[in-house]
């Protein structure tokens, strides 16, 4: 296994109390595999990713329990300096908004080249040549001329390509993409996603794709992990989930995708709001919003039940996963 997150707990201490952002997350990614992490804002998907990268702001963040095994090493036991060397070289991250993720006062060539000068000790000239090569690789036209330009001179899709190029520069084993296409036009979204998927195959990287867009996921992901209130509520191979979800929350997410054949009808929405992370409901965190909730859901927190039959490993944190699967 390339990356294994085990029983990770992260909380934020704020003036108003403790916000439990991540409450026992388990997931794993293999080389060449794409794991999509789905969930609403505040479900803990980004915090988990930041913890894996080691860029969580601490304080106020605090890792209270868990292990992050990356290529067999527990990252949480490493010193900051060792972790820094892993970042960028062994694992890299792509952010949502490429305009704000690029430094406005440095040319894109300088920023791309920096990956090589900092991590590989290359000369500025060699790094510049590598930057052009990378820009070519992510299909930025006229890379040689544009390498001297500044981020604001590129379109949204081009900027995201540059971010991807920076993340891929040192050919890391793992890439975490935090909503890489959310800020882009729909047509450009597909191109960027295709590019990312293609490069992933080329380098045989593990990819964690954080998103709330189920449409993006279906094409590229191998596995899906659905997060709710800091926990994984369903984890399954991608086809299983689209065929029949085994958790009412996943079902709600799938039902709220707009579809052409529903034109004119009201769009389904999961009722209620995600819980405050300071007051996560007892029992199953989803029970106040769940159409299938029973008394047991209000008192007992469901473990991750193994769901069968399945193409691979499948789990659902719902007492009534059978009913959900067949209902």
């Amino acid at each position, binding site marked *: 296994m390339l990356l294994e997150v085990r029983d990770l707990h992260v909380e934020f201490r704020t003036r108003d109390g403790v916000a439990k952002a991540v409450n026992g997350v388990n997931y794993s990614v293999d080389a060449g595999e794409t794991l999509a992490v789905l969930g609403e804002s505040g479900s803990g998907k980004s915090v988990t990713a930041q913890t894996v990268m080691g860029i969580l702001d601490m304080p106020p963040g605090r890792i209270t329990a868990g292990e992050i095994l990356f290529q067999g090493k527990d990252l949480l036991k490493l010193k900051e300096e060792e972790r820094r060397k892993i970042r960028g070289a062994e694992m890299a*991250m792509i*952010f949502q*908004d490429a305009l704000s993720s690029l430094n406005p006062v440095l*040319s894109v060539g300088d920023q791309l080249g920096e990956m090589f000068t900092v991590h590989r000790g290359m000369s500025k000239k060699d790094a510049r040549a590598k930057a052009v090569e990378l820009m070519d690789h992510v299909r930025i*036209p006229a890379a040689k001329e544009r390498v001297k330009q*500044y981020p604001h*001179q590129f379109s949204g899709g081009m900027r995201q390509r540059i971010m991807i190029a920076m993340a891929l520069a040192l050919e890391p084993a793992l890439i975490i993409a935090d909503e890489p296409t959310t800020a882009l036009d729909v*047509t450009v979204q597909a191109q960027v996603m295709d590019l990312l998927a293609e490069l992933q195959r080329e380098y045989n990287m593990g990819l964690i794709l954080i998103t709330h867009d189920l449409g993006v996921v279906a094409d590229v992901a191998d596995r899906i992990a659905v997060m709710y209130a800091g926990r994984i509520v369903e984890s399954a191979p991608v086809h299983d989930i689209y065929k029949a979800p085994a958790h009412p929350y996943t079902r709600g997410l799938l039902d709220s995708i707009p579809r052409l054949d529903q034109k004119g009808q009201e769009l389904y929405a999961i009722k209620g709001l995600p819980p405050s992370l300071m007051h996560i409901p007892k029992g199953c965190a989803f029970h106040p919003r769940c159409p299938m909730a029973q008394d047991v859901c209000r008192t007992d927190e469901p473990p991750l039940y193994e769901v069968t039959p399945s193409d691979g490993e499948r789990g659902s944190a719902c007492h009534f996963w059978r009913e959900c699967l067949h209902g």
Partner: protein
Amino acid sequence: MPEQPDDDGAIAATGMGGAMDLATSEGETLEKTRGGPEGAGPQEKPRSLWSDAWRDLRRNPVFIISGLIILFLVFISLWPSAIASGSPLKCDLAKAQQGSQPGHPFGFNGQGCDVYTRTVYGARTSVTVGVCATLGVALLGSVLGGLAGFFGGASDSVLSRITDIFFAIPVVLGGLVLLSVVTNNSIWPVIGFMVLLGWPQISRIARGSVITVKQNDFVQAARALGASNSRMLLRHIAPNAVAPVIVVATIALGTYIALEATLSYLGVGLKPPSVSWGIDISAASPYIRNAPHALLWPSGALAITVLAFIMLGDAVRDALDPKLR
């Protein structure tokens, strides 16, 4: 499908066929973008923040006027003898308070010194004090403020309280108390005093600016790609946070020149035989009815100098942060 406002024509055209056939058309597009001139993208010149700001400045009349005045001031500070042949310390009591006469366009002051020569030589003191105090303040303030803003936590709280304490000291009163015990008759105690009282202003600005920039995604992104603290601070945060510091420092330069004159006027700044506008204003003020010219010229020079630096600061601010306009 409507034409998409994307500046990369060929890539945008990929989307024209709809999302479905993207995978197939991607390859063809690639050929086209690599080979054809239509995929070459706009051949804009690279435009950095600084080159943009410089372009704005060159077109701003306020900048041109204040810049010319300041250039002139710097020139006469470096080579005062180029436009004033006499010595500012050569005085002839017989000519005291006389008005303008050939060779002495501004007349003579109460001690019979040539007002023109003294006004020209006074610029050197003012510019030196202003520039040195500003450099000291900017350096000390931005380093302390920047570090506090970047690392936060306890050091930040301590620094913020210290700046609060310094803010509570009235500048003129503080100058009267502190400088009256100094016997050294050079410009350095005055500069030191200004740095001592001035750095909290810049430190507060630098701290706020660093905190704002620190929250930007690109700092997080740099961290995620393995940048060290010093690299993030120096290469990613500092260049983006320096603009407000430059603006405030430029405006402050004018006020330091005025402060030097004030302190010298009060007798705790520079003392004769130093040549300073403040000293001359102080010496001439009792005789304002008999010899107004001796007061007018150094006061006028002081006012124009201070105004020029404040105008320059305004112009720089407009260029560096158009949102504030």
